[in-house]
């Protein structure tokens, strides 16, 4: 900018005045006058030019400081506050929003430094504005400004501003404790000051905007994540902040996220509860409703929407804002709200009719949201009672009626998503869930009141009806997404578990209903067999099985699920266990499923999809009801419930014992196994169905030992095992399923009491397969036969099966599985040779060995270990000889990338194999005494690693999993066996070091960390050894002369350089500093003279004398402060960590910026600019200003 000489002299004069004032303040002379001078600068209307001039030209730091302060104050005052206030009526709302956001940010930046008086001045201007003295437009702006402030001060919506988290925390605390309530009151006053004007006028007035904004601000404040004012009793965990204040835009709020519990604490009691504020709000909205017929007001106008949002928000008020009077106050509060909300949702049929004929649904949906909020903060009994005092029916009845109405609408207009009835159904389902979950988990609240059970059963029957209708309507649709059982089940899972809760609320009604509906459909199938298309009925049955499965049993998620509490505790009229509704329903389904064993029935009725549902149901049902372990059943009924329930629950659990071990359990188990076998044998190619059988049903059966005991005794199970071992048929299963099946069958052997017998069982199961592999591998014409596709398929299947069996290793069957593997060891090597070009087979071979070694290694005796280890090494060598230096050629890029992926998978398997071998040194269950001379595992693994390393290219290390596996193995080896490094040959040694060096510069923090750990181990080993006079790593560490007579550095010298460079100049996460310190200390101790030299170099390089001395001091402190000594014990490591952190804090700032200047020549321009401006420490400022952008 060009300045006239006149201006310039004026600016110089101002600068001098300020400088004089500053120095006089410092010297304590003429203080008042000096302060006045400075204040005049701050308050002058356009201080920018003067301040800029001072900043650029003054030599006096104090003067520059004052200038900077003045700029900030002026910016807030002029650019933001005044700007928005003066242009309040301008139509560009987004400009104003941006400016008020900027003002809020500026305020926050200075918040902790402003004095209370300064904040007061600013806020009083805001208050004036919100009171409406300057008119509605300014009032609106004032409220908007508060909105920006609140959102800027809330953690979840604040701007980062490059400030530490602590700063944000302090601002949030200050806002919450000192201003939030005040803001709320201002907003409330602003709203109530304009209500009359709005209600009196027949068309929208400017005040409408003000009122809407005020209501939004109140909502936003109630959404605040209250932390400090609720007495710190509960943390704010699990609460969701929604500060977005996008009130009008609520259609796509997702389920279960809508209900935030508001707990502002007792200090808010006067404002929110006792002031009659809610009454005002309700009556205001009530009055507003009357005006909806008028022009300019409608159900979805912003004002109405905001008011409703606020009312809904009030419904979720909770915590000690209510006095502890047994909830009376909260009940009154909720009742008051509910009576206001009733007009939105009651009577349900009229409401829904109105919506169907064109009325907006938003009020009704908000009513549902309010119910959800109330349900979340109350118990079912209180929830039901609320309405009873003002109406003839309880809230549960209303809820049920509302839900039925919604379901009816849903049934009429079928399955269109995103209609209002979908949203309403989900909201109401969530409400039910909120009510019923407390019963299911809390226990002591007991059951729903009788009327509630009735209501629930009404709703449930409609739910089932609507689901059936939806099922039959979709029976012929070819919707791809729902084709997969898994996908559709998990998508529906959430909804189904809500249904289940409702269904379980009154099992004496709902379960017989389900039984009837189920039997009806089954009967219909039988009648129509061969005459009519069964598809619709099949789809209905499919859907019913899903619902019933959810109602009867919970998902175990890896644990054994118990009979759901609601089912266990409910009193059921029927005395005999055979007539217990759950037993009746289970039996009907089992009977139906049994019919699938008949081939004719199967062909006409049991479609693959229906079988999927049956298999899924059986898996879920069996985990809970089939042969429950009796002890748990009794302890449950005895201890968990009070006396009143005990009698009933024992009746129920006794009823379920009908499927126990001493009752029908065995025959049901037999049936289940039969059905499972059928799905495997009689549904060729149905991969999804068979996956369910293998991974769900059979796994569920063998998971419990007491079931296995019976399983191995069953003929059906034996037949399945026999078919698996000896018949061709099961080879047509997908090979991964065969693996799972092998695993399941082997695991079931744990049910045999005698260990020798269980080993024999496994031998019988697997011996044909191992024999076959051996036979094939010894064939003379193997080379020719092996590549026939059918032989490849067979070999793959057998390997998968062996792998499955290997994965089932348990101590009891360990011996048989060891024999299984050891007999095929030789064949495996032969196959590896023959199939060297057949990736799929090679991978299976490797994976089998990996799993087998993993299961076996810890049990093996010395001799067995030697054999296995030897085998593994031969495997590695063979693999390496086939693959090293091999280049795949293909015209197709996707085939080439497949080849790369294949390589990656192989190498990962090899690394896993080595890691498994390593575990022998950590865990060993063999009977050998530790003194027995055994295989030196460390030697073997190093040897293996040296074979593998050349196969791993830098390209392959781009696969994160492989990279991770590789470095964790490497660092493990170096940490546990550092002495082995000395024995490596040169090539292997340089490979290891090269990879370490590569790893140190890796982006993945964990990889760097692992490398640092490895370095630490190496260096500390060497140091400790040499201090006691041993050689340590010997020549490796000392460095050597190469052919030209050049002295090359030893490894520790090299790594010392690298690490120092890394620590001082490069980017890394601060989490790595401790690990780096741990590695650096032993390195320094190993190479003390080099360290001195490097330190001196570093100091010499500094041009700035100030930095020079700082650096020298810091280096001195690094190695001497905190009583650091020359030992490598825990204490010393800790001290050095502290020292390094301090050191880095001190020097990294200036060291690094200098490097940045070198790195980015462009920045020299900036540098020269800054240097002429004579601001100190250009490096740091540059770093702060420019470096973050570079990083981004």
């Amino acid at each position, binding site marked *: 900018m060009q300045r006239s000489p006149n201006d310039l002299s004026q600016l110089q004069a101002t600068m001098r005045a300020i400088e004089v004032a500053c120095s006089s303040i410092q010297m304590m002379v003429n203080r008042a006058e000096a302060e006045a001078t400075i204040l005049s600068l701050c308050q002058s209307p356009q201080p920018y030019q003067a301040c800029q001039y001072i900043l650029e030209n003054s030599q006096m730091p104090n003067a520059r400081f004052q200038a900077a302060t003045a700029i900030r104050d002026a910016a807030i005052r002029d650019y933001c506050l005044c700007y928005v206030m003066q242009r309040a009526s301008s139509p560009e709302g987004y400009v104003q929003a941006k400016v008020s956001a900027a003002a809020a940010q500026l305020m926050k930046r200075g918040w902790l430094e402003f004095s209370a008086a300064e904040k007061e001045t600013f806020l009083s201007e805001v208050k004036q504005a919100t009171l409406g003295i300057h008119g509605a437009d300014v009032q609106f702006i004032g409220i908007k400004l508060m909105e920006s402030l609140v959102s800027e001060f809330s953690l979840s919506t604040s701007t980062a501003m490059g400030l530490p988290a602590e700063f944000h925390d302090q601002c949030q605390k200050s806002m919450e404790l000192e201003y939030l309530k005040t803001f709320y009151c201002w907003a409330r006053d602003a709203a109530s000051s304009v209500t009359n004007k709005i209600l009196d006028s027949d068309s929208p007035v400017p005040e409408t905007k003000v009122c809407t904004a005020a209501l939004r601000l109140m909502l936003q404040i109630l959404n605040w994540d209250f932390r400090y004012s609720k007495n710190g009793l509960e943390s704010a965990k699990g609460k969701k902040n929604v500060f977005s204040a996008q009130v009008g835009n609520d259609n796509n709020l997702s389920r279960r996220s809508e209900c935030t519990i508001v707990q502002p604490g007792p200090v808010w009691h006067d404002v929110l509860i006792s002031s009659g504020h809610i009454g005002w709000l309700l009556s205001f909205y009530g009055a507003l409703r009357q005006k909806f017929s008028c022009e300019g007001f409608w159900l979805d106008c912003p004002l109405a929407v905001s008011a409703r949002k606020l009312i809904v928000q009030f419904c979720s008020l909770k915590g000690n804002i209510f006095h502890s009077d047994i909830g009376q106050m909260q009940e009154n509060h909720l009742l008051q709200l509910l009576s206001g909300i009733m007009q939105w949702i009651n009577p349900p049929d009229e409401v829904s009719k109105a919506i169907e004929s064109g009325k907006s649904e938003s009020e009704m949906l908000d009513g549902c949201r309010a119910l959800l909020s109330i349900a979340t903060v109350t118990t079912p009994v209180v929830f039901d009672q609320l309405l009873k005092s003002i109406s003839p029916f309880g809230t549960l009845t209303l809820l049920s009626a509302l839900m039925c109405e919604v379901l009816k609408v849903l049934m009429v207009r079928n399955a269109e998503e995103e209609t209002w009835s979908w949203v309403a159904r989900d909201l109401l389902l969530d409400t039910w869930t909120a009510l019923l979950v407390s019963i299911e988990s809390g226990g002591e609240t007991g059951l729903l009141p009788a009327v509630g059970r009735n209501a629930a059963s009404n709703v449930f029957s409609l739910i089932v009806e609507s689901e059936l209708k939806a099922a039959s309507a979709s029976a012929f649709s070819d919707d791809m997404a729902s*084709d997969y059982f898994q996908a559709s089940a998990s998508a529906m899972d959430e909804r189904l578990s809500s249904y289940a809760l409702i269904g379980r609320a009154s099992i004496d009604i709902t379960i017989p209903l389900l039984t009837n509906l189920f039997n009806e459909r089954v009967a219909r199938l039988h009648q129509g067999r061969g005459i009519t298309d069964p598809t619709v009925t099949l789809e209905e049955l499919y859907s019913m099985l899903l619902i019933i499965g959810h109602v009867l049993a919970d998902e175990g998620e890896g644990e054994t699920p118990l009979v759901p509490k609601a089912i266990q505790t409910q009193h059921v009229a029927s005395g005999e266990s055979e007539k217990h509704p759950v037993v009746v329903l289970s039996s009907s389904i089992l009977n139906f499923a049994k019919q699938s064993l008949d081939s004719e029935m199967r062909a006409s009725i049991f479609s*693959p999809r229906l079988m999927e549902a049956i298999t899924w149901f059986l898996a879920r049902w069996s985990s809970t009801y089939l042969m429950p372990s009796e002890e748990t059943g009794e302890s449950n009924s005895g201890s968990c419930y009070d006396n009143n329930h005990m009698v009933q629950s024992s009746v129920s659990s006794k009823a379920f014992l009908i499927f126990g071990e001493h009752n029908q359990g065995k025959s049901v188990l037999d049936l289940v196994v039969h059905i499972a076998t059928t799905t495997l044998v009689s549904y060729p190619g149905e991969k999804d169905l068979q996956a369910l059988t293998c991974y769900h049903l059979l796994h569920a059966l063998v998971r419990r030992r007491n079931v296995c005991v019976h399983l191995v005794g069953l003929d059906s199970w034996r037949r399945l095992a026999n078919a698996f071992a*000896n018949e061709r048929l099961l080879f047509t299963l997908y090979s991964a399923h065969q693996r799972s099946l092998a695993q399941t069958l082997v695991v079931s052997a744990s049910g045999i009491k005698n260990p020798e017998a269980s080993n024999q069982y496994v031998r019988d199961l697997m011996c044909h397969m191992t024999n076959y592999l051996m036979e094939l591998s010894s064939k003379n014409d193997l080379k020719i036969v092996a590549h026939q596709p059918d032989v490849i398929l067979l070999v793959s299947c057998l390997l998968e099966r062996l792998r499955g069996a290997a994965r089932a290793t348990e101590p009891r069957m360990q011996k048989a599985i060891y024999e299984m593997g050891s007999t095929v060891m030789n064949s495996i090597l032969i196959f590896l040779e023959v199939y060297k070009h057949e990736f799929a087979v090679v991978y299976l071979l490797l994976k089998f060995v990996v799993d087998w070694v993993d299961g076996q290694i810890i049990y093996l005796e010395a001799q067995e270990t030697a054999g296995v280890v030897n085998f593994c090494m031969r495997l590695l060598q063979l693999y390496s000889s086939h693959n090293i230096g091999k280049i795949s050629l*293909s015209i197709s*890029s996707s085939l080439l990338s497949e080849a790369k992926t294949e390589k990656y998978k192989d190498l990962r398997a090899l690394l896993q194999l080595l890691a498994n071998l390593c575990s022998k040194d950590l865990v060993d269950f063999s009977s050998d005494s530790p003194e027995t001379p055994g295989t030196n595992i460390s030697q073997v693994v190093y040897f293996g690693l040296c074979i593998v390393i050349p196969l791993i290219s830098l390209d392959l290390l781009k696969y994160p999993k492989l990279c991770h596996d590789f470095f964790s193995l490497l660092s493990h080896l170096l940490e546990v066996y550092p002495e082995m490094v000395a024995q490596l040959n040169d090539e292997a040694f340089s490979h290891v070091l090269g990879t370490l060096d590569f790893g140190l510069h890796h982006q993945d923090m964990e990889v760097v960390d692992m490398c640092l750990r490895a370095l630490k181990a190496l260096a500390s080993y060497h140091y400790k050894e040499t201090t006691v006079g041993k050689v340590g790593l010997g020549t490796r560490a000392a460095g050597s002369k190469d052919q030209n007579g050049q002295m090359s550095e030893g490894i520790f010298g090299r790594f010392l350089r690298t690490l120092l460079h890394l620590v001082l100049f490069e980017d890394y996460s601060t989490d790595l500093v401790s690990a780096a310190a741990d590695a650096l200390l032993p390195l320094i101790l190993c190479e003390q003279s080099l360290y001195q030299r490097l330190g001196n170099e570093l100091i010499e390089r500094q041009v700035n004398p100030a930095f020079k001395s700082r650096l020298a001091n810091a280096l001195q402190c690094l190695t001497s402060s905190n009583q650091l000594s020359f030992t490598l014990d825990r204490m010393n490591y800790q001290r050095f960590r502290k020292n390094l952190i301090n050191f880095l804090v001190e020097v990294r700032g200036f060291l690094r910026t200098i490097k940045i200047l070198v790195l980015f020549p462009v920045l020299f321009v900036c540098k020269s600019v800054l240097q002429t401006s004579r601001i100190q420490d250009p490096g740091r400022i540059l770093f702060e200003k420019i470096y973050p952008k570079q990083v981004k």
Partner: protein
Amino acid sequence: MSDEEHHFDSKADAGASKTYPQQAGTIRKNGYIVIKNRPCKVVEVSTSKTGKHGHAKCHFVGIDIFNGKKLEDIVPSSHNCDAPHVNRTDYQLIDISEDGFVSLLTENGNTKDDLKLPTDENLLSQIKDGFAEGKDLVVTVMSAMGEEQICALKDI
């Protein structure tokens, strides 16, 4: 398994059959399949159903192992597909002739001179460069359904 059920005919002409039937449901990703009479490597398998209560069918995406073209097929998963007999043999590379043929040394000491070099510039240069450097190269020749091609190269 009993011999009866798993008997292999180790006929001398075992390699003669070009394809074998295999149930569609058992074909995995990375396996081989014949689509439109071309040998392909399977790069993608997905299953779907013919109508909700119908039977499963497999959708294969394969890449022609010789010309790299993408081919797709849908087969009921209980039906059989053709799986090609893909053979790979290693030969030592003796010479590259000017007219674009290679001379290969077989295991029993004979030479095989009927294999043409690939036309693709990139592949061609990879083979030629290695050979020109005087390395001992082993080439892997892939053959299936009457076609042959060099598919890999290894330095010994």
